[in-house]
């Protein structure tokens, strides 16, 4: 109990350091905007992303055979995550026309390669599981 109380005090103290840093540097840190961002990310995750992930997993469970269910869910999750992470690259939002070294690659092609490899790995896993008589 004493350890928990101490940890709570230390933890909330470190949180206070962060808040003090933001408030003390308000012109740059915009503390109100930071709080809005934190709450928004919480809400988007809990109310949108999580339900979509559970729904997607449930739908895969309904249509995909048992032996393939795990690999398909994994590949689908990887595809969704890599696509989300690469989305600003695909859109070129950070690219500067006067600077050829900013986002210099063909990200559409590269993402397709990465996602292709993910599904190839998933297919290989399914084949191996089928041969070994594995389940999900």
């Amino acid at each position, binding site marked *: 109990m004493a350890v928990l109380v101490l940890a709570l005090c230390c933890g909330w103290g470190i949180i206070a350091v962060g808040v003090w840093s933001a408030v003390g540097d308000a012109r740059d840190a915009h503390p109100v905007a930071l709080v809005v961002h934190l709450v928004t*990310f919480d809400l988007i995750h809990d109310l949108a992303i999580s339900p979509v992930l559970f729904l997607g997993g449930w739908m895969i469970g309904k249509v995909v055979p048992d032996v393939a269910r795990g690999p398909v869910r994994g590949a689908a999750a990887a595809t969704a995550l890599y696509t989300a992470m690469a989305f600003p690259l695909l859109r070129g939002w950070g690219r500067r026309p006067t600077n050829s070294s900013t986002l210099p690659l063909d990200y559409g092609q590269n993402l397709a390669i990465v996602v292709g490899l993910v599904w190839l790995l998933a297919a290989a896993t399914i084949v191996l599981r089928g041969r070994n008589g594995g389940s999900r």
Partner: protein
Amino acid sequence: MESPAPESIAAVARAKRWREQRLSDPRHSDRVAAILGIALGVSFTVCFLTGLLSHLIQHPPIWFSWTTRPAGTYRVTQGLHVATGIAAIPLLFAKLWSVFPRLLQWPLATGVLHAAERLSLLPLVGGSLFMVVTGLANVQLWYPWVFYFPAGHFAVSFVVMGALLVHLVSKSAISRGALGHDGRSEPEREVVVQGRRRFLAAVGAISAGAVVTTVGQTVFPLRGLALLAPRHPDIGVQNFPVNKTAREAGVATSALDPSFVLTVESDGVVLRAFTLDDLYAMATRTATLPIACVEGWSASQTWRGPRVSDILEEAAAPGTRSVSVESLQRGGRHRRSVLTRAQIDDADTLLAVEVDGEPLHVDHGFPLRLISPNRPGVMQTKWVSRLVVQ
């Protein structure tokens, strides 16, 4: 008092049933939560410490002193900072998915301490998502927000680490119990173990994939795999990346002024002025050093130019405590940087006039670029026009 509507009672009952079903799935077990929590704790801690180091190097308090050697240390720590941040993204989403059914708990808290612990989940979850999303956007050069990224990222990092401490300690008993469990005593338990291991293996593989497809922007041998890296160490003017071009810095004309001179000053007095011909004649030192950007990319080049210490000696200011290196750039947060005595004395601290055997391109800092071992790229001042001794 009115009774709750039958629909509400049915909805709560459905939510409870859903929660119980999910918690019986090995992917939502305490053991999976504990293992993912440890992985996240390690990656966040490494990320925090390397980020704090970068902050201290750029904004040194009076008690902090940074070394010039080994010359590649900052390249490693900042590369590690970005790599662990990227690795944390799949781990974080997997952890949040795994523990999500536990969010549906009634009552929300069973006491004051429990409430304080549950309340800390708000800054932990929101802050963690903030850090990885804004960190990723920063390395991708995308800034869809009003705050100055370093200031916001720095402040929220403490919020997350504080919340993480609360979370780790409050879950320690559950985690110890879950990690100490053997789980192989009955045939059906084997299915549970297998399901858990396959889930964790998949999460690990996705995390590793995210790192492998980006880390080549700093780990040179892996550059061929860096399919989703925002920078490539081989691509840019003179075959390495540029952060700010001369045009963006507003020095495209002044940097090419044929009457350019470098001045060494003290207390507003010009001690000595050097023309480019003077500096080329003094450019006897060659050093192979990286530009290590705070965004996690790095590239090594061979630089040639006069030593800063030789310039100061020629200007009759050899014993200076420190020197402010200032750019032609009029505005901007990084138009000047300070060299300490140790950095001045390092034989590889140069004002470069050439890179890889070619005259320095204006986007890489022509006429003069500061290059000094083991410093962040933003402190390797470009378009140097003044040295102010202190």
